[in-house]
């Protein structure tokens, strides 16, 4: 088994990002779509940390801290909004808010 190189980590990140995209596009449940964005965040964060380790600096780790904060903020607001939307239409189907398309 070869030692993992930068490419190995980037491949893992790419796979997770694409799985997240597929899930985001196929599922209709708002909470599930939200979970898939978390998957995409994870793919990007792996890339950032792998490049940080590759270049021997801390920029990647600092960025991932910011990504974590954004994800936590997004989680709190998005889930609050999802609960509000659920109260008004009693469903989590993203198609229920079709009129938002304008």
């Amino acid at each position, binding site marked *: *088994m*070869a*030692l*993992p*190189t*930068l*490419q*190995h*980590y*980037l*491949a*893992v990140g*790419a*796979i*997770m*990002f*694409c*799985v*997240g*995209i*597929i*899930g985001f*596009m*196929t599922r209709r*449940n708002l*909470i*599930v779509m939200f*979970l*898939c964005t*978390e*998957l995409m965040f*994870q793919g990007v*964060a*792996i890339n950032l940390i*792998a490049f*940080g*380790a*590759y270049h*021997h600096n801390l920029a*990647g*780790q*600092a960025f*991932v*801290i910011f990504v*974590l*904060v954004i*994800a*936590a*903020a997004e*989680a*709190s*607001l998005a*889930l*609050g*909004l*999802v*609960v*509000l939307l*659920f109260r008004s239409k009693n469903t*989590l189907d993203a198609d229920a808010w079709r009129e938002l398309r304008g």
Partner: protein
Amino acid sequence: MTACLAQISSPETGFIASALFYLFAIMAGAAAVGVVVTRNVVRMAVMLMFTLIGVAGLYFLLGAEFLAAVQLVIYAGGTLILIVFGVMLTTKSPFARFEPKMAEVVVAVTIGLVLLGAMILAISPANARFASNPISAGQEYPMARLGQALLGDYVVPFELISVLLLVVMIGAAYLAKARKR
């Protein structure tokens, strides 16, 4: 631990490092596929937890011990619990399903696979310009240096993100209040 693994590059520790990498990578990837494939939202959240733990393991292997711990505490501990609460607050039955149309699945999977192929092609050793020697933690990243970087080089984004957190806190409180009307 990681730094030791990388510095002593005897065959055994190299084998352990690569075995750990494949273990964590397969765990994260398989659980990610599980998140997308499973129909049960609660089971999905559990799958996401396994993904997050696998990614935290990868952070460990990359020498980012602090971020691995933060990942476990904030994501697996905090965000995931929040998601489970959201699931329980919103679903009348946690097994509610919205089956996507077959055409949508085909289009989405095609787009995803094409994107994945493009990314893999871009990072393949034939095209990428970075050296393909094994990535090693070689240099240690003590937490103190990360803290100094956050309050030194990255002080502006750090302050901005603090303001963002405050705004989000106010917004969440407002949403919670609006719910009672």
